């Protein structure tokens, strides 16, 4: 028995010491895309959730624990977006380095200004996030704040490559700011346009470009629409002169189609994350695609 235990321990030690390259795991693909811009080939970057599925309801497949097991850094979105699926995975992974409050843990929501923080919360309001709207990455102006935060964290964990990360971040931000100028120009023509969305998913983006949300297809966060709610929404669309229905890739399409038929207002399917649609390959093309689809270019 003693020999057996000794053997196992040696085995673990050998495998444990074989690590060299920094391993970063992010919860969502958009974080992985930003991180890749900064680390290039100096670290391995992987993500847990698929970009084409509901970010609130990720299946905690055991295989995801395997990714967490080896990670040196875990970067999460925060604002309770991961609360329903990440804790059991973290618990199973038994990786002390990436526990919240450990040095290998980064919560991006701490670096941006959140909107729609409810003054009081009750679950009678549906599945609300007490801290505010968690989908902050869809404001293009937030992305450089996130890349700065990621760069600082990487510098702390891997000081040898710090200069490399900072240079990449600089290049990334310069490219990003160029892109923002393009998007700003394209989005100029939809300023003030009223829209309806399924879930309060695109609010940061819409706020940035002064588009107005007249209503949501789901009556309350996380509660599917009822016939009565859709009837009311048809009225809203007509009286408020809504000119676009925004649909995400993971909620059922039927309600949007129904609204579109009844009001002859067009619906458009928008990606919310990298990988949500095939064109959204990285953080740049994600926003390219959103802008393209929303402006119908």
């Amino acid at each position, binding site marked *: 028995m003693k020999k057996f235990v000794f053997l196992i321990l040696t085995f673990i030690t050998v495998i444990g010491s074989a690590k060299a390259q920094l391993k970063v795991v992010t919860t969502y693909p958009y974080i992985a895309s930003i991180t890749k811009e900064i680390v290039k080939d100096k670290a391995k970057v992987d993500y847990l959730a698929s970009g084409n599925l509901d970010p609130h309801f990720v299946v905690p*497949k055991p295989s995801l624990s395997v990714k967490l097991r080896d990670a040196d850094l875990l970067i999460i979105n925060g604002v309770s977006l991961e609360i329903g699926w990440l804790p059991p995975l973290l618990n199973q992974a*038994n990786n002390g380095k990436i526990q919240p409050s450990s040095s290998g843990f980064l919560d991006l929501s701490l670096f941006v200004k959140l909107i729609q923080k409810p003054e009081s919360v009750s*679950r009678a309001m549906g599945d609300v996030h007490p801290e505010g709207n968690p989908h902050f990455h869809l404001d293009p102006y937030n992305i450089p704040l996130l890349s700065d935060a990621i760069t600082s964290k990487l510098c702390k964990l891997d000081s040898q490559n710090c200069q490399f990360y900072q240079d990449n971040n600089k290049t990334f931000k310069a490219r990003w700011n160029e892109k923002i100028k393009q998007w700003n120009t394209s989005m100029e023509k939809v300023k003030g346009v009223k829209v309806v969305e399924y879930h309060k998913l695109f609010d940061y983006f819409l706020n940035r470009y002064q588009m107005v949300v007249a209503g949501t297809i789901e009556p309350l966060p996380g509660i599917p629409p009822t016939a009565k709610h859709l009837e009311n929404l048809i009225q809203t669309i007509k009286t408020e002169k809504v000119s676009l229905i925004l649909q995400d890739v993971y909620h059922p399409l039927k309600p949007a189609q129904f609204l579109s038929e009844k009001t002859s207002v067009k619906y458009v399917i928008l990606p919310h994350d990298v990988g949500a649609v095939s064109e959204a390959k990285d953080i740049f093309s994600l926003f390219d695609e959103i802008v393209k689809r929303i402006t119908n270019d």
Partner: protein
Amino acid sequence: MKKYLITALIPFLTATASEVDELKKQLEKQQQIIQQLQEKVKQLQDQQEILQQTRGKLQNVDGRDPFEKMLSNPFSQAKFVPDISLLLDFSYVSRNLTDDTYKQVQIPGFNHGLFHSHDGHEGEGPYNPERGFNLNYAHLYIAQTVDPYFDLVGIFHLRESAFEIEEAYIKTRQLPYNLGLKLGKFYSKFGRLNEKHHHYWDFVDAPLIYYSIFGPHNLLEKGSQLTWLAPTPFFLQFGLEILQGDNENNFNRNGFTVNTKQNGSGDNIKISDTKKPNLYVFYVKPSFDIGNVSILSGLSYAQGGTRIDHLTDDTPHAISGTTKIYGADLTVRYNIDSYRYITWQSEYIYRKFDGTRYGYNNVGNLITPSLEKKQGGFYSQVVYKFDQRWRTGVRYDLINKNDVILNGVNQNQPDNLYRYSFMIDFLPSEFSRIRLQYNYDKSLFLENERKPNQEIILQFNIAIGAHGAHGF
């Protein structure tokens, strides 16, 4: 002439160009200065504001000493309130067996009635024991991170007449080598279903084989659990548990004294306690994905000493020996999209007991035949979540091995104990569930006569507060 003029202009032009550059630089500098000044002004304004607020606070408006109005609560720890949630399990039951019959029926070869009650011992009954309304429990969950090293979880079942510590354990956060240590009272990770709380089961009740072997509370024990996630490219978890051994169907650890005569006039024979801790559990759980399909399987083994004392019953008896339990499980889950999935889950459990039975013959003399039990069965279920708020499922239960061998003679216990279950549940939100289940149960016997049981259970499972997320 023109040529001459242009040549004369060149140095002049270059001079202006460099001047423009200079001007630009100066402008930039000035802009920087303006920015710095603006920031300073803002800082000053902020300070002014704070100053005014402080002055306001100190102003003596209503004649009271301003310092008395400034309340301080320096020792409040309100922000450290742990996650607390309360979960209610309430049901309505319609059953063809009367409550009286239901209290007496047993699964032959396994238990002394579903309620495991006998003289001097009021056992824990199954969920939904009565026809009509049942308040099964209120489940109180309290959990928080203790410090950088531990998490603490407490789960309490409040029944109308009991307050039970369902689970209370600490788990490490920072052990090296992907090791995790749990200490306290908790559900063993033996098998697939054992670790899951009742409110997270796919059906109202436990599979027959679980209930028969482990009793109403599954394998719930005090002790320690060490888990290790192996450094393999797929998920491979190993676990070792050293437990006290409290499960009254298998591992009761306290010895007993038996008299050689039923009337107590003979000599006492003392059967010692088992060694403590008494129960060892080992398991390995591999898992991998193929596209949208996740597969989780497991092999489990439990072994411990057995001491069961029913000497105060009408037919006094006791057993002493060793129990070994083997389990194999397989879960295949196909994720259709964010809200829909199909899960097929099956488990086989086999128990082997070896030991001695202490009982009395017709004339009241102690007889101690050897007792051997080889019992096994499985369940297989399919659950289909076909909508964001709706799930349906079917389950088939079968106990197909039920050998109870006394002194080498098989007692011929029934070994075709089976049950069909069907359920449909509606999830108004993530925090509530209403489930309707139908059972057709052919596992229950009353004095060698099979008592088919049909039941319809409407279950309400409602949670408030901050509840920890559930795993796969």
